[in-house]
């Protein structure tokens, strides 16, 4: 869901909550101008916002409700309990419509029917029928009824005093034939629809004088839940449904749906919630707020939590992971199977807990990316450039703290793209390009990382210009021979700017090196591809999260290391035969593919052990695959990433450290930089 929709959803929820509070307040304390205004404003506001998004159902419903409230404001009628009940149902319905609409869902048949029923009822109020709601009365006369002294037809006439009877359907299905009938026993029933001018409770009370000889059910037939509840409670549900179908009291589809729900609930043994309180004249005892809250509770809601609270939780889980590692180690040392089993269970639970908490921190990048639309618009306007800005993969999720730290670097890259990359409309036309330059911000997941690309179809990086400037600034020696990629990467060098004019947009050369530093602090990597005249693409590759990762514990010499698990492709034994085959060069052939090897013992000057078999951990990052030679493989390990101290912070190939169960420190391999090192070395070597 994009940011605008999210804002609309949140705003609508707030407005609807205000409406509900006002209605409940009216229910409790009677009519109040301020409350009426609040309800009117809530409907009016939601209508306006929904109109902008083209949510017609929401607009239709809020429009009618707004008209109702306008009439109330004008004193054309006063709200009674049945109106309040109807408006509360309207509020619930609008909430459902808003949630469906923001999720891009169309109204299904059930929602459509409910919508139409509600519209009719709201229209009914506007048509001046006083908002008398349609009630369904189901009467089942008990066998003893003829002994009650009450004439049945008189009772049917009595109903007419309570409102307009719009349907009266006899139910004679249970009347036996002439042979079997006992004529003093009553077998009949009636189904009535009543546009009542009394509340359901009042009508029910009116029947109290025959309550021992009559089963009465009164419900709002347009409330499917009430309908289902009735069919579950009545002694003759089949006969009722037959009568409705025979006389077309309700639409077939609606009846099918209700019956289906009854069957489902009976099969599942699901209890239908108790009936909601029936509307009462105001002031009367209101329905309990708790009951109302349960009844109208939204299906989904968002809870805003300060991120520091989640961070604290993650820190605590991190400590628990470390503590559990100690227990696991202890259990192994003590050779205690019961303890080992318990620590295993605890490990699984911690992993689930960790994943759950981490998932809370994951947010869609679109929320942040959308803010850049305004930035792009403003910069383009200021520079007189025409830009078509596109966001792709807005739904991609990333740790919130990563996104927060990514925001400024991305803004800077976009500024650079528009300022340095995209040409003026005139220049573009001269070069046969469309007047509008295209800038794209794309995000997608790839092999345990998130890739973010900022690309443009501008002039591209001027290799000569960048190189000359770098030489002039002493960033590279005059005789340096650099590849196109290496030259392109110079744009991240401190103090380098190729902009001929320094603007407040970019060009002071203090931005891109900071961008690189920020990305690297996030354990991310930057790369640049550029083609003169065609455009530039800057790629950022980021870890999914910063706090805890699934690692793979290995040993090299006397030191333990962690390899991020999601970068591992496979592990294999480094056999003498393999070495022999490749003549002890730093390569292996794996399924017809030559893979460069990086011997970590040599790389980190670790002790070479001859007493154990060597292993290769094949890792992949972006499109590069390298085999890392290690001594021992220990297996998966939940790794809490601890930052390195000042002294070790800039050690190449190490991105952090973790604490093992034994209390030992294990260093975490920085696979991207190790691969980068190996591939550079291999290229020079070749």
């Amino acid at each position, binding site marked *: 869901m994009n940011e605008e929709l999210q804002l609309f959803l949140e705003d609508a929820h707030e407005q609807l909550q205000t409406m509900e509070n006002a209605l409940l307040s009216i229910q409790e304390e009677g009519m109040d101008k301020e409350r009426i205004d609040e309800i009117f404003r809530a409907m009016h506001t939601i209508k306006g916002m929904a109109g902008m998004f083209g949510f017609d159902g929401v607009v239709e419903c809020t429009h009618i409700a707004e008209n109702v409230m306008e009439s109330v404001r004008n004193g054309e009628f006063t709200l009674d309990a049945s109106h309040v009940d109807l408006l509360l149902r309207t509020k619930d319905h609008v909430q459902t419509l808003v949630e469906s609409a923001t999720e891009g869902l169309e109204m299904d048949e059930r929602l459509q029917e409910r919508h139409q029923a509600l519209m009719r009822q709201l229209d009914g109020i506007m048509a001046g029928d006083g908002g008398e709601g349609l009630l369904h009365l189901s009467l089942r006369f008990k066998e003893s009824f003829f002994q009650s002294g009450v004439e049945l037809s008189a009772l049917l006439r009595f109903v007419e005093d309570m409102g307009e009877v719009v349907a009266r359907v006899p139910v004679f299905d249970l009347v036996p034939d*002439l042979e079997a009938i006992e*004529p003093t026993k009553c077998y009949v029933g009636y189904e009535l629809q009543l546009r009542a001018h009394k509340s359901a409770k009042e009508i029910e009370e009116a029947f109290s004088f025959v309550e021992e000889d009559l089963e009465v059910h009164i419900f709002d037939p347009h409330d499917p839940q009430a309908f289902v509840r009735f069919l579950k409670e009545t002694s003759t549900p089949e006969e009722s449904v037959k009568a409705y179908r025979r006389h077309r009291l309700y639409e077939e589809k609606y009846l099918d749906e209700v019956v289906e729900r009854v069957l489902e609930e009976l099969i599942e043994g699901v209890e239908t919630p108790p009936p909601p309180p029936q509307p009462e004249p105001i002031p009367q005892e209101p329905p309990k707020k708790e009951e109302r809250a349960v009844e109208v509770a939204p299906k989904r809601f968002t809870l805003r939590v300060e991120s520091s609270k989640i961070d604290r939780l993650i820190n605590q889980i991190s400590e628990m992971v470390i503590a559990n590692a100690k227990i696991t180690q202890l259990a192994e040392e003590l050779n205690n199977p019961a303890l080992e089993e318990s620590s295993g269970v605890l490990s699984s639970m911690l992993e689930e807990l960790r994943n759950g908490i981490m998932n809370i921190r994951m947010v869609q990048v679109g929320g942040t990316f959308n803010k850049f639309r305004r930035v792009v618009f403003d910069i383009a306007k200021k520079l007189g450039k025409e830009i078509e800005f596109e966001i792709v993969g807005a739904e991609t999720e990333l740790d919130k703290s990563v996104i927060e730290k990514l925001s400024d670097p991305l803004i800077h890259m976009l500024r650079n793209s528009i300022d340095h990359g995209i040409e003026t409309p005139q220049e573009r036309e001269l070069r046969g390009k469309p007047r509008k330059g295209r800038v794209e911000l794309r995000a997608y997941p790839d092999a345990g990382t998130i890739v973010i690309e900022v690309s443009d179809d501008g002039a591209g990086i001027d290799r000569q210009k960048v190189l000359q400037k770098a030489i002039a600034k002493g960033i590279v020696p005059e005789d340096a021979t650099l590849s196109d990629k290496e030259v392109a990467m110079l744009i991240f060098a401190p103090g380098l700017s190729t902009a001929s004019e320094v603007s407040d947009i970019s060009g002071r050369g203090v931005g891109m090196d900071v961008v690189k530093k920020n990305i690297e602090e996030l354990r991310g990597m930057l790369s640049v591809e550029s083609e003169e005249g065609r455009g530039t693409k800057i790629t950022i590759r980021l870890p999914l999260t910063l706090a805890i990762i699934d690692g793979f514990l290995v040993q090299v010499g006397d030191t333990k290391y962690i390899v991020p698990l999601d970068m591992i492709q496979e592990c294999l034994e480094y056999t003498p035969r393999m070495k022999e085959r490749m003549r002890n060069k730093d390569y292996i052939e794996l399924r017809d593919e030559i893979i460069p090897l990086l011997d970590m013992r040599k790389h980190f000057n670790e002790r070479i052990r001859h007493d154990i078999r060597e292993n290769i951990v094949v890792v992949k990052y972006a499109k590069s695959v390298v085999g890392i030679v290690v001594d021992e493989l220990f297996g998966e390990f939940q790794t809490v990433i601890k930052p390195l101290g000042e002294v070790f912070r800039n050690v190449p190939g190490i991105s952090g450290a973790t604490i093992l169960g034994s209390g030992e420190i294990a260093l975490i391999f920085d696979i991207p930089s190790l691969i980068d090192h190996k591939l550079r070395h291999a290229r020079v070597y070749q």
Partner: protein
Amino acid sequence: MEWSEQKIDKSNIDEFTLFLKEKFKNLNESKFTLDLEGVERVDFTFVQLFVALRKSCNQKGVELEVVRMEESVRRYLEFAIDAMVKDGR
């Protein structure tokens, strides 16, 4: 064999039931005629019995004909038996 009382209600519904059952048992035709001449007042026990009679006739494929029915009785039967569903509900 005809019913001679002016009313059919719970005070004499047992007798009227017996009367109908007897008449129905001895039916030799494909039509059952209920002559209500002189019956000025009925209550719901009669309505229910009438429904039971109609059921039995349907079961046996016999046509039910009601003759010489007072207007008040007809109106009562209509009110009790006919479904009423208003348009534009």
